């Protein structure tokens, strides 16, 4: 797996809303530590994603990379011939 750089302009409102919806499923006791930028609550992450600031962009990148890795696995499974 590889973390692909995602162009900010490529990301539609729909994707941003999808990321927010995913973050909203996280419990409120969770804190996310992102290097030396700090530790963030779920609420703060959602705000950052909405504002499209540096942290928000990183969270979008992480979630999109994960969803892409899932779709790759699905493609590989579909390509595998049945024995």
């Amino acid at each position, binding site marked *: 797996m590889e973390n692909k750089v995602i162009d900010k302009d490529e990301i539609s409102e729909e994707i941003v809303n999808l990321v927010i919806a995913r973050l909203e499923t996280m419990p409120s006791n969770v*804190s996310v530590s992102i*290097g030396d930028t700090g530790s963030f609550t779920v609420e703060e992450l959602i705000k950052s994603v909405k504002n499209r600031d540096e942290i928000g962009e990183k969270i979008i990148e992480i979630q999109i*990379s994960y969803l892409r890795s899932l779709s790759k696995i699905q493609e590989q499974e579909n390509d595998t011939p049945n024995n």
Partner: protein
Amino acid sequence: MILLITRPRYETPTHYLFHWAEILVMEAKKRGWNVLDLQKEKAKRNEFQSYLNKKSPDIVILNGHGNAMSVMGQDGEIILSTNDGVELLEGKKVFIRACSAGLSLGREAINKGANGFVGYIQPFIFLTDKDSFNKPLEDVLAKPFFECSNQVGLSLIKEKTVEESNTDSLRKYEEKIRELSHSESKNSFLLPFLVWNMSSQVCYTPKTNQ
């Protein structure tokens, strides 16, 4: 055999790194290693580079904040960078658990003769349970992140090669990802972050750097 490890502790991320890295210290001691444990105020540039120079450790493990070019010790002091001390890593197996040090510092370590390097080319991310701050080793949200990354150090301490240690760690990631992907898992929201760290982990050796 000698292990040199840094464990700064001055805010939440380093508090977690400090405690989870203690598992590596304990394992090394259990196996009879001489452990040079530079914790808290001892995780400073002069002390670290002096030990690196004079004690000639077999394994060097750094925990802390970092960026492409450098790694920090206590209170954010730069203890190692591409233009300060990297040549002291010659002949050593190196694991840097810090953000992005795999981008330049890891490559430079190999160029300067390090035996191997494992690190990250993106920010190292982990989740915690705010209610578990005082018991970081019992924090079920942090556990997968630190168990997977700790595996690099544990395998190195078992005298495996840098490549084998990286492979063991990636296997641990796969195992945790499978567990969290189970439909009954309550913590599947950890998956994107765990996959992120796994994808960001790199392993360089003199062979791969050619």
